[in-house]
């Protein structure tokens, strides 16, 4: 024995002390605890900490299941007193149950596995749904936080212009503070490495409105928020601070190179802080708008606004005040507002609402899976109860107490269910962490708010239900019959018939649930395929996109960015393999939504705000070629379309029809944005391009030559179409950029990748539902296999007689298969019925395919039938090989 040093002692765990106190008589506890600790220390020294922990747990369990250590009188089972004492499950029963389960490892594993999958998946999805929809935003007094939208004449929610937000903040009384938010994707340079960050620009009141403060450093000041010149200051997220600076607190107050210029790092947000609309925000900067700044205008509706209600003001009162206030704004600035009031949802409604349908759909799918798992556990137990049947009968014949036997069988089920539920809870917790970190589920606001109580509740409820269905029901069936009668009639008893009926019902239910999940997965596949088959209007294959951010004093003079891009295109087009190259201010499907009003010269309105709006693309001459956007009418952009020449514009097909109706747009003149800009002559029509999403509506789109753009764009995207591998000419492109401006921050991605990212959320939904469907299929077929094989076993004698009377093997196979197929058909019919009944709900989750699509059902039924056949082959072939003589002899 190894000698232990005096310092090796560690105090036992509290739980262990409690268990020992419960089970070991007081006078023995000291010795037992001492032995456990000494043994633990020994094992740890010899075999390490983890083995020691396992050892400890095992010894502890052995203490608990072995009958009382110092029991002076062992209770005899025959005495009346002890029988009463034992009518409740005791630790002795627990040991019996454990032993019985250990003897059926396959069965126990299957039950646990089923429960872990069902409960784990449910909890993972539930947790996400909870954080996204039910949990309050993780800020102080979250119910006082609201989002402010202008309401368009069509009743839609619209972003607001900076001046509108400022007026609300100054002139209304409902809010203690108001803050505005704009997107920001700065490119930060750290040594050789440049990376685009997820950022937002915010009013200096932003964090105050939310009620949070930086962990270290300070908040933005009103002075920093005054102008573009003063806004070079940033607050970092905890994660960014850790990854870039390794958590060095001295970095606060120093500067970092962001978009090529030095920014002061003012502070770092706390670890758990997640931003309101974009939880993964890494960096915040001040908005820095002022009344004379061009994007600050009232019609520049690109800002989101949040506000905190004053404590004494109700939401209704605030809504009324804002509606009235908006009317007064409209009367003061009649040409700048078309809206008819404001929409003011609470922050929670706003952030949860967007994802409600898809998340609830997922929750529905996972609930079906959980139901399936519970039913399947019941099925497994029923299958086993056939084996346990005789055992129970004999025990009853020997005088065992019925209640006690029932308790015993239920106890087995409960042990499995609770351990499966516990493991499932762990899996679910882990899964939800994984899901919440995925970018495609953005509203994961409640990082710290884990719904522990409801989660444990669900796990417990599911476990207990599974245990009741699985354990107690079969036992009750057996115990209903008197023991003697059972033995007399053998296996063909009433309870047996009931059990069969129950198992058949279960298989039908399983098949039905599997059909629903498979059909849903099928619809998701079709939706995704629809999205993928949509013609985006351009050809992404072979195109590389490079986001370029030009910041620095050298770009302050007018026209400098145009000079840059012209030189750049010259350099890039010279690279071998490059077919076409161009720059654009916003990339289709790239997440930008720059739009402005379109005003017709021949049809002016008193209020230009009532004119339609269109997405605005400023492009260089090669753009339509590089993206392969078809020119339907008119002429292409040429290098002659530059500053000083007549301003020209192109419209997309749908936009042209919507804006000009039956009039011919070519040759007509339009203005874009405010009414103070130049007139643009429409000189061409191009094909529609999917800009915001692949499956949404086509919006109005207009293109203008980059050189005739009213705005100096400091952020632009280079699109390069090349022959062969996309990656092959990328080094050349980035070298060309570096030659012109070593400080230019860039980030490259293939156009195919841009499109793929668009579909991230759909792909996730598909893979989750698809995964559930596959599990459902496996569970249902496992159930079918179990039922059919059990039936073959029990009908061996009948099959033997049939075979002796001349039934051919083919006939016997058909007989067995027919029984299984009947169950599959019934289940499929019920499943399809369920899907059809839920058609109204399903419509919300699919695009481009009808929920009642017959092809989908045919596919699902076909797949199910095929796999069902496979599940039945083994028992059916077994039936066909039955030797009549062997069967007769065994009776």
């Amino acid at each position, binding site marked *: *024995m190894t000698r*232990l*040093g*005096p*310092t*090796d*002692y560690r*105090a*036992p765990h509290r739980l262990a002390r409690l268990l020992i106190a419960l089970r070991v008589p007081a006078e*023995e506890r*000291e*010795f*037992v*605890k*001492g*032995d*456990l*600790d*000494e*043994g633990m*220390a*020994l094992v740890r020294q010899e075999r390490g900490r983890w083995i020691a922990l396992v050892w400890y747990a*095992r*010894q502890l*369990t*052995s*203490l*608990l*299941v*072995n*009958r009382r*250590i*110092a*029991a*002076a009188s062992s209770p005899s089972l025959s005495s009346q007193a002890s029988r009463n004492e034992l009518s409740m499950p005791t630790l002795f029963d627990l040991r019996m149950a454990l032993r019985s389960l250990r003897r059926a490892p396959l069965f126990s594993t299957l039950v646990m596995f089923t429960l872990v999958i069902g409960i784990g998946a449910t909890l993972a999805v539930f947790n996400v749904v909870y954080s996204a929809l039910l949990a309050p935003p993780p800020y102080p007094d979250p119910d006082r936080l609201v989002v402010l939208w202008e309401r368009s004449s069509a009743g839609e929610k619209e972003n607001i212009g900076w001046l509108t937000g400022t007026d609300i903040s100054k002139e209304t009384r409902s809010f203690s503070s108001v803050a505005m938010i704009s997107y920001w994707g700065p490119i930060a340079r750290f040594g050789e490495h440049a990376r685009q960050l997820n950022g937002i620009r915010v009013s200096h009141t932003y964090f105050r409105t939310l009620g949070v403060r930086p962990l270290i450093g300070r908040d933005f000041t009103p002075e920093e928020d005054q102008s573009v010149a003063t806004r070079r200051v940033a607050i970092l997220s905890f994660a960014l601070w850790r990854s870039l600076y390794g958590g060095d607190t001295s970095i606060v107050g120093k500067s970092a190179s962001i978009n090529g210029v030095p920014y002061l790092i003012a502070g770092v947000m706390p670890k758990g802080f997640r931003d309101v609309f974009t939880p993964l925000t890494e960096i915040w900067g001040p908005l820095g708008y002022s009344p004379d700044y061009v994007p600050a205008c009232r019609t520049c509706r690109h800002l989101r606004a949040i506000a905190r209600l004053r404590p004494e003001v109700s939401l209704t009162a605030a809504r009324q005040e804002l509606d009235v206030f908006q009317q007064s704004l409209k009367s003061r600035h009649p040409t700048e507002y078309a809206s008819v009031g404001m929409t003011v949802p609470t922050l929670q409604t706003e952030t949860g609402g967007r994802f409600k349908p898809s998340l609830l759909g997922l929750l529905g799918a996972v609930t079906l899976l959980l139901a399936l798992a519970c039913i399947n556990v019941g099925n497994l137990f029923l299958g086993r109860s056939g084996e346990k049947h005789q055992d129970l009968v004999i025990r009853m014949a020997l005088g065992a107490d019925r209640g006690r036997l029932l308790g015993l069988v239920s106890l087995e089920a409960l042990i499995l269910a609770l351990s499966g539920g516990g493991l499932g809870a762990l899996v679910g917790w882990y899964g939800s962490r994984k899901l919440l970190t995925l970018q495609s589920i953005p509203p994961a606001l409640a990082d710290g708010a884990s719904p522990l109580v409801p989660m444990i509740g669900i796990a417990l409820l599911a476990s207990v239900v599974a245990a009741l269905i699985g354990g107690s029901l079969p036992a009750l069936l057996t115990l209903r019959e008197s023991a003697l009668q059972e033995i007399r009639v053998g296996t063909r008893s009433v309870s047996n018939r009931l059990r069969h009926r129950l198992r058949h019902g279960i298989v039908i239910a399983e098949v039905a649930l599997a059909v629903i999940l498979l059909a849903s997965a099928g619809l998701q596949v079709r939706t995704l395929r629809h999205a993928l088959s949509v013609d985006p209007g351009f050809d992404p294959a072979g195109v590389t996109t490079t986001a370029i951010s030009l910041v620095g004093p050298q770009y302050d003079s007018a026209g400098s960015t145009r000079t840059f891009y012209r030189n750049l295109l010259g350099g890039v087009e010279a690279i071998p393999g490059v077919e076409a190259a161009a720059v654009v201010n916003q990339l289709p499907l790239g997440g930008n939504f720059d739009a402005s009003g379109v005003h017709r010269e021949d049809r002016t309105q008193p209020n230009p705000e009532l004119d339609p709006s269109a997405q605005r693309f400023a492009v260089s001459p090669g753009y339509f070629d590089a993206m392969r956007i078809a020119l339907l009418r008119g002429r292409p952009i040429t290098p002659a379309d530059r500053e000083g020449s007549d301003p020209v514009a192109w419209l997309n097909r749908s936009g042209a029809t919507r804006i000009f109706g039956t009039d011919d747009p070519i040759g007509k003149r339009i203005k874009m944005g405010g009414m103070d800009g130049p007139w643009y002559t429409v000189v061409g029509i191009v094909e529609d391009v999917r800009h915001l999403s692949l499956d949404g509506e086509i919006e109005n789109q207009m293109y203008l030559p980059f050189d005739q753009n009213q705005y100096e764009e400091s952020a632009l995207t280079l699109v390069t179409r090349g022959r062969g591998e996309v990656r092959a000419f990328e080094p050349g492109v980035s070298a060309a950029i570096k030659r012109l401006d070593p400080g230019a921050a860039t980030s490259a991605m293939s156009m195919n990748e841009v499109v793929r990212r668009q579909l991230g959320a759909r792909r996730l939904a598909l893979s989750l539902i698809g995964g559930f469907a596959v599990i459902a299929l496996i569970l249902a077929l496992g159930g079918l296999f179990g039922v059919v094989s059990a039936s073959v076993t029990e009908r061996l004698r009948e099959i033997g007689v049939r075979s002796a009377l001349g039934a051919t093997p083919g006939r016997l196979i058909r007989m067995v298969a027919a029984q299984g197929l009947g169950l599959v058909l019934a289940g499929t019919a019920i499943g399809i019925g369920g899907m059809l009944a839920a058609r109204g709900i399903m419509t919300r989750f699919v695009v481009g395919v009808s929920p009642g699509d017959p092809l989908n059902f045919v596919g699902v039924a076909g797949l199910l039938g095929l796999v069902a056949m496979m599940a039945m082959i083994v028992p059916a072939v077994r039936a066909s090989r039955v030797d009549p003589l062997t069967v007769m002899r065994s009776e």
Partner: protein
Amino acid sequence: MSLGDLEQLVLLAILRLSPEAYGISVQQEIAARARPEVTLGAVYSTLTRLEQKGLVSAKIGPPTRVRGGRRKKLYIVTGAGREAVRESLQALRSLSRGLTPRLGTP
């Protein structure tokens, strides 16, 4: 008096360990030499049974640091216990005599 399998092993272990035979040392001795899977719980209930049968007797030993200052319950085999071990070993020996070739070498 006939002995159970584990009772026999526990008695032998106590004899080997004497005077340092107590719960965990007995369990470790049996685990190391005969039954790796034996648990403390099983050892305790066997010890209790042996004590009731009068085959072992217990006394309280001194506390040690590694046990968190707790004392040990030390066991010794009584005269009856030695007799029982002797009998059961005797029985084993006489029954297995001459069987070695048939059992094969371990």
